[in-house]
């Protein structure tokens, strides 16, 4: 009896040593910061002398909600999610279905489609900024001179709405590869005999896709909707680089570019923390709602 408990104790001790480095990092740089940030959001935080920080209660949160620039940033962020999430999913599924056929060079196609995913956000953001530049950009040239769709050059980045064209297209272009790989894994997990049985019953390609593929991809779809939405709500780098975070007139902010500006340009750490907590709650609520809604549909 005592040898068993001694063995348990030794094993617990060993386990503790295995966990130690990871736990220290996790507490110092993740769990601790999370709690710390919550506290800061209730202060007019003094970054030089934290002990001089002034408690302001919910004032930072109230300031955010009453600020038109913040509300605009929320709308911009939501619009980005509403456009890029379905965009990535529809094109991603389309590419995955193509890649799932018996074709040669599948590895090659996968590598190419994945290239935007592994490229740093900084590089692709600058690239899109250049392609969409007003006077001599490639996109204006194609639209105006090749297809004659527009009469004169569009100044994409000078317009608070049109500035989102490069940002949203970039979001879709960069994310399709990953979405397609996840869909492809989902497609390959569907048992082939289901399709064969449907063929015996005389189902055509479209019927098979609608009645077998789509329903059986449901778990993958739920996963993608949730993960891609979280990613979209946290979008930041492309906007920061393409619009300089808010240009023109602070009308093109995302929630996080606003957080970045408040915190690291105006050193308003309390306000910045409040914004990032609002975003976190936002992300959490949206994820839970999405999971609930999409799961319910499965049961019906």
């Amino acid at each position, binding site marked *: 009896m005592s040898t068993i408990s001694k063995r348990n104790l030794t094993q*617990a001790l*060993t*386990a*503790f040593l*295995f*966990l130690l*480095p*990871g*736990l220290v*990092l*996790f507490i*110092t*740089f*993740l769990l601790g*910061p*999370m709690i*710390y*940030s919550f506290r*800061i959001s209730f202060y007019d935080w003094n970054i030089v002398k934290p002990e001089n920080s002034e408690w302001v209660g919910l004032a930072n949160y109230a300031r955010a909600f009453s600020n038109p620039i913040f509300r605009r940033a929320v709308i911009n962020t939501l619009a980005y999610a509403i456009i890029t999430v379905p965009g990535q999913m529809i094109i991603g599924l389309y*590419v995955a279905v*193509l*890649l799932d*056929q018996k*074709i040669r060079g599948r*590895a090659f196609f*996968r*590598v*190419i*489609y994945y*290239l*935007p995913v*592994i*490229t*740093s*956000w*900084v*590089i692709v953001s600058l*690239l899109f900024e*250049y*392609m969409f530049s007003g*006077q*001599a950009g490639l996109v204006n*040239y194609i639209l105006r001179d090749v297809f004659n769709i527009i009469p004169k050059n569009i100044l994409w980045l000078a317009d608070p709405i049109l500035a989102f064209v490069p940002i949203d297209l970039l979001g879709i*272009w960069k994310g399709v590869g*990953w979405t397609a*790989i*996840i869909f*492809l*894994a*989902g497609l390959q997990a569907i048992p082939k005999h289901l399709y064969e049985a449907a063929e015996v019953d005389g189902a055509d390609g479209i019927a098979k896709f609608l009645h077998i593929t789509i329903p059986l991809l449901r*778990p993958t779809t739920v996963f993608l909707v949730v993960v891609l939405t979280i990613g979209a*709500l*946290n979008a930041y*780098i492309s906007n920061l680089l393409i619009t300089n975070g808010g240009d023109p007139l602070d009308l093109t902010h995302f929630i*996080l570019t606003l957080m*970045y500006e408040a915190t690291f340009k105006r050193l308003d*750490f309390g306000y910045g*923390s409040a914004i*990032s*907590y609002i975003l976190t709650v936002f992300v959490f609520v949206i994820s839970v709602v999405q999971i609930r809604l999409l799961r319910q549909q499965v049961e019906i």
Partner: protein
Amino acid sequence: MGLKKQQFVSKVIIYTLLIMGIGIVIIPFWYMVVTSLKPQSLIFEMPPRLWPQEITLKNYIAALGKDLFGLYFLNSLIVAISTTLSTILISSLLAFAFARLRFPGRETIFYLFLLGMMIPPVMLIIPQFIISKQLGLLNTYLGLVLVYITMNLSMQTFLLRGFFEGIPRDLEEAALIDGASQWKIFWRIVLPLSRPGLAVVAIFTFLYAWDEFPWANVAITETTRRTLPIAIAFFQSEHLTEWGQVFAASIVALIPVVLVFAIFQRYFIRGIATTGLKG
């Protein structure tokens, strides 16, 4: 015969669609390469050419010779390699404890770690900045590496725990009877058998650390400590119209990423497919 013909037509359609898709993916990259090879006077040429009229390496020479580019490349390399090695070690230690050892609170601690996969990383930037400032970690390699390890810990531990659980226990039990310690089992048996899993962790963390921008953007203020993404972003904001040089630097920064990916893509895709779906 009719069926064969039909199959042939559908094959042609599939390849055509796939190749069109590849065009959309590749054209921006191609345009970047072409721009990097153009002389500065043709950067805003009309019409913009997708095939350069005259090729010059001037942008590469200028960009790489300027602004401590070699140092930035080295900074990125040091940070990415240190992050990769430490993440492999620390997350496999954690994963081994969760997969093999018995201790009180195992499930609770494991789920606590999973929390790390759900938190939007940018929300942590402010407190991470304040804590790093207090610990004197701003503008250091260590300050970047420690945060990068932490941000990868949850996902990689989760991945490796799954991997370790798939390893048959017979070998370990034999070793235990021979009196081997848990450490020895971890180091001599479990780790060597998990090479494919460790490869996935290595690729993910290397690419993450190589590409990371938001944290480095606030943690690094000294010019000499910049990593490549920061350096390229700054370079562009300081030399607004010198796109040729911006893209020359970008392409050099992109080479290690493409190499790592091309070599390990098989592991990589499998890793995404499995972790992505479970995570």
